[in-house]
């Protein structure tokens, strides 16, 4: 009983500390914000979209202006330029490049022409998101190879601890999802699906960590989900059987629906594209909205502070932090669910492309 009370006291103390720290941080960064000539009031919309989007350099906590510099690689009008992001993130122009403040290219690297106009170069920069991608990829490699090493060294002994959990997840995704759905084709497609699952999961979870190795809103970025969905689309399309294409181009429906006007064909072809599109939007929207809700909840503190004063802000912070914690935990769940949903749907789309002729109808 005493231990329980002590434990709960420790938890309360930690929560209180977190709240105080957050409030201090909030006050500090707001003060810094003001001191740096941001005379305008807090702009929640801008702040939210800034955090959801990409950035050159990686923010560090407690200092609004310091960033971990990342390489900028651009192909402008006069060829390739590489330099570190800290040369331009302060608003400077370096080798003719700067971060635009114009409406059109806001926050992106642009090349300033001689007449003052801004041209967007081919931008291969290692931005925060790209660096996040690499970190996630390396983490996945490390994770998966640690499991492999376990098997290589321990000869079929069940893995313990974190590796055991990893194996549980692999088994759930492969043994309980991919293999039952794809059957004999499973070994061929499993590497793609498993890689996609673990990459998405790692990116999702990394996105929830607020400081350096995490914090990049990767799967909440449409470019990332676009590539993933595109790969599923390509695999589905290129492994389509004769029966799959027949069902698209000459489905078994009454003649009137397909012959003079190819209505069914139109719908089926549309379906080919809507499936990956849904994959792309689902993952993107889920992760992005999770981040957005957390951001809004945190920003509520500052909004209320600026509207009603510090007292109300402190009151709000208690609720905000509680809800933020809840949302983050929910997002951990969502991270797993969305990675799994992406994988299972990709598996199903692939299995639909691998369809064999129905024997009863073939006769």
């Amino acid at each position: 009983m005493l231990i329980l009370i002590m434990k709960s006291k420790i938890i309360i103390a930690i929560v209180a500390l977190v709240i105080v720290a957050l409030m201090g941080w909030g006050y500090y960064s707001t003060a810094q914000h003001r001191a740096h000539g941001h005379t305008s009031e807090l702009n929640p919309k801008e702040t939210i979209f800034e955090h959801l989007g990409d950035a050159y350099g990686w923010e560090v906590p407690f200092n609004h202006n310091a960033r971990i510099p990342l390489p900028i690689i651009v192909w402008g009008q006069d060829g390739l330029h590489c330099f570190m992001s800290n040369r331009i993130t302060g608003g400077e122009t370096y080798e003719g490049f700067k971060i635009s403040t114009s409406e059109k290219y806001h926050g992106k690297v642009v090349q300033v022409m001689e007449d003052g106009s801004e041209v967007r170069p081919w931008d291969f920069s290692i931005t925060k998101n790209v660096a996040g991608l690499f970190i996630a990829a390396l983490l996945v490699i490390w994770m998966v190879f640690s499991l492999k090493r376990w098997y290589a060294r321990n000869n079929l002994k069940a893995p313990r601890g974190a590796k055991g959990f990893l194996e549980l997840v692999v088994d759930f995704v492969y043994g309980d999802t991919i293999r039952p759905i794809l059957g004999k084709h499973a070994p061929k497609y499993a590497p793609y699906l498993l890689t996609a699952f673990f990459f998405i999961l790692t990116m999702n979870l990394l996105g929830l960590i607020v400081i350096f190795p995490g914090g990049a809103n990767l799967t909440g970025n449409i470019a990332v989900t676009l590539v993933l969905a595109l790969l599923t689309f390509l695999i589905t399309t290129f492994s389509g059987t004769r029966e799959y294409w027949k069902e698209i181009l000459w489905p078994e429906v009454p003649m009137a629906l397909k012959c003079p006007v190819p209505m069914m064909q139109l719908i089926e072809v549309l379906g080919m594209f809507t499936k990956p599109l849904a994959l792309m939007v689902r993952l993107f929207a889920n992760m992005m909205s999770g981040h957005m809700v957390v951001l809004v909840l945190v920003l509520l503190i500052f909004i209320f502070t600026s509207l009603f004063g510090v007292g109300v802000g402190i009151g709000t912070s208690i609720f905000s932090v509680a809800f933020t914690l809840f949302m983050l935990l929910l997002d951990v769940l969502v991270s797993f669910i969305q990675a799994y949903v992406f994988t299972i749907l990709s598996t199903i789309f692939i299995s639909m492309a691998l369809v064999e002729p129905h024997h009863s109808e073939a006769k």
Partner: protein
Amino acid sequence: MELFTPEFGLVFWMFLAFLCLYFILAKFAWPYIIKSMEERADKIDKGVAYYQEAEARLQNAQAEADKLIAQAHNEQADILREAAKMRNELIENARGEAADEAKKVTEAAQVSLEQARKEAEKQLRTEVGDLALQIAEKVIRRNIANDDAQRALVEQYLSEVETKN
């Protein structure tokens, strides 16, 4: 809507990163992991099947053993009963034989006793006769001339005595 416009650079790097990740994992990790996991699953399945079979066998063996034990108990009881019967018979036989033997011994003893008695009687009779004769002779030597007539008389008396006995 900046949020919904995929950035070219990120698409490029994502494509590259994913493909590298895919090729590394698909070549060096996933097949091995899947193979190992399936091997282990197979091994566990086999182990379970083996265990179940072994358990069934064990139960069979147990039943068999129980049956054997029960049978052995029955046999033991039979043997004991048989043995008891045999023992009783043996004792009975021995008793009978002993009784016979005893009877025989007794009879023989009686016979020899009888013989001895007759012998003794005979001897006694002769000795008594002689003794009587000697006595009689001493008593009546002088007035009895005919010895033979006297002896017949004594014989006669003795016979009378014998019949009285």
